[in-house]
């Protein structure tokens, strides 16, 4: 074990398990969902064995994802309230893209908070529209024009979520040392000091030397 590394716990085991349940569900749902959306990708229904099985299983996995995400919502919502600093961050996103830090960032930056609320919105839309379109159990209780809107909303919000998750995954890869937070649960002092200085001070009681 390296003694040189000073580490901070960012996500406990329960949080990590919770995250990866959502992540695995998302991947399965995105693959099967894209199969239902793009005729040329229909073969991706094979992720659940057969097209019929994919149609049957997809909504149940969706419910698991929603419930697991709801747990995450209650874990993180209070960390994701958007303040003035986050707006500044969002306005300066060009600087951020160049790899420069903007502002005295706490546990999450403006981009992460924005991502959080986009995910929340998509998850709610997906659940509601998904239940309305869910055959054979629920769709029969809704008028056809409502089901049509639900199908459109379901596809549109799923695609927004897929594009967002690509950004989410890329951000985690780009900012090196981030994946470790969700795999091992820890980040280095250097990582925290650079990307989340205010959070670093809060958890260590140290000054960041700015």
């Amino acid at each position, binding site marked *: 074990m390296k003694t040189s590394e000073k580490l901070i716990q960012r996500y406990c085991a329960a949080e990590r398990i919770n995250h990866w349940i959502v992540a695995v569900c998302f991947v399965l749902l995105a693959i099967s969902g894209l199969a239902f959306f793009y005729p040329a990708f229909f073969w991706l229904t094979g992720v659940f064995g057969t097209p019929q099985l994919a*149609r049957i299983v997809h909504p149940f996995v969706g419910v698991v994802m929603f419930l697991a995400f709801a747990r995450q919502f209650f874990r993180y919502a209070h960390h994701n309230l958007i303040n003035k600093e986050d707006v500044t961050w969002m306005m300066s996103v060009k600087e951020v893209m160049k*790899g420069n830090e903007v502002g005295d960032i706490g546990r999450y930056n403006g981009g992460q908070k924005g991502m959080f609320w986009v995910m929340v919105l998509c998850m709610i839309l997906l659940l509601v529209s998904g239940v309305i379109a869910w055959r054979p159990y629920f769709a029969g209780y809704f008028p056809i024009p409502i*089901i049509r809107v639900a199908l459109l909303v379901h596809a549109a919000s799923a695609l927004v979520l897929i*594009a967002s998750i690509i950004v989410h995954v890329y951000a985690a890869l780009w900012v090196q040392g981030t994946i470790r937070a969700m795999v091992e649960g820890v980040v280095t002092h*250097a990582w925290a*000091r650079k990307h989340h200085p205010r959070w670093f001070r809060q958890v260590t009681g140290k000054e960041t030397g700015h």
Partner: protein
Amino acid sequence: MALQSLDILRRSATPTPTPQARNPQEVAKLIDTTVCIGCKACQVACSEWNELRAEVGTCVGVYDNPTDLSSQAWTVMRFNEVEEKGKLEWLIRKDGCMHCADPGCLKACPSPGAIVQFKNGIVDFHQENCIGCGYCISGCPFNVPRLSPADSKAYKCNLCSDRVAVGQEPACVKTCPTGAIQFGSKEDMIEVAQTRITDLQSRGYDQAGLYDPAGVGGTHVMYVLHHADKPALYSGLPDNPSISAVVGVWKGMLKPLATLGVAAAGLFGFFHYITVGPNRADDEDEADHGTPPAPPAQGTKHKERENAL
């Protein structure tokens, strides 16, 4: 699979063209509501030929029985009493799939080959490819397809495609005792309808006409109506049916938009990484804050590198 004699014009969830060389003539079923006596022989013939048995229902106070289409009832007679020009009229309509030229069910279906449109105009469901999502139900402007509770697959009238393939008329046509249902080439059926409409108009039904709605590209099941100006009188036959705009956006514009959005996100990440490069938290900070084994020299070196960047 389809019989060889039934060439396929369109196939659900299939982006490339189907074989297009042969051009069989379009067929149509003409239902003359002005001749129909509501005997339901067509329902029975349909049930017999297609080996369907709807559950025996109960009388609900009107003649409709079964009261709605189902996976076991591909056609039902709908009875409606209306007062037109101070006279009571009993309007009877044989409901079922209209076999649209522009089928909403086929447009909505995500499963390749679960719905096909034959070149003769018949729209057929191939249940072995059906995944039971019910998108066809949402796509249909006439509210016709029904999921079977037994197998969660969608069913509807197939215009007896198996009979038509071997040169016979659909079972309902064969059995109709009054000749209210006729079958032939679409061209011929329009001609038959026109003769009948001229006759009806000469006998006081000045709004008599043919129901072959252009909003769905015309249909391969057409009605002669005494009140063609008010199709809704016939148990809610839509005035001007077309594929819902919502379904149009979902199955149309959203696809290229989604492709652009998802591709943009992925490509942005790739090009950002190979141009800007990874965002690293430098190790020298560890040294600055007293991590034991990191020598100060290394820290300086890192600082220099940072400055160079």
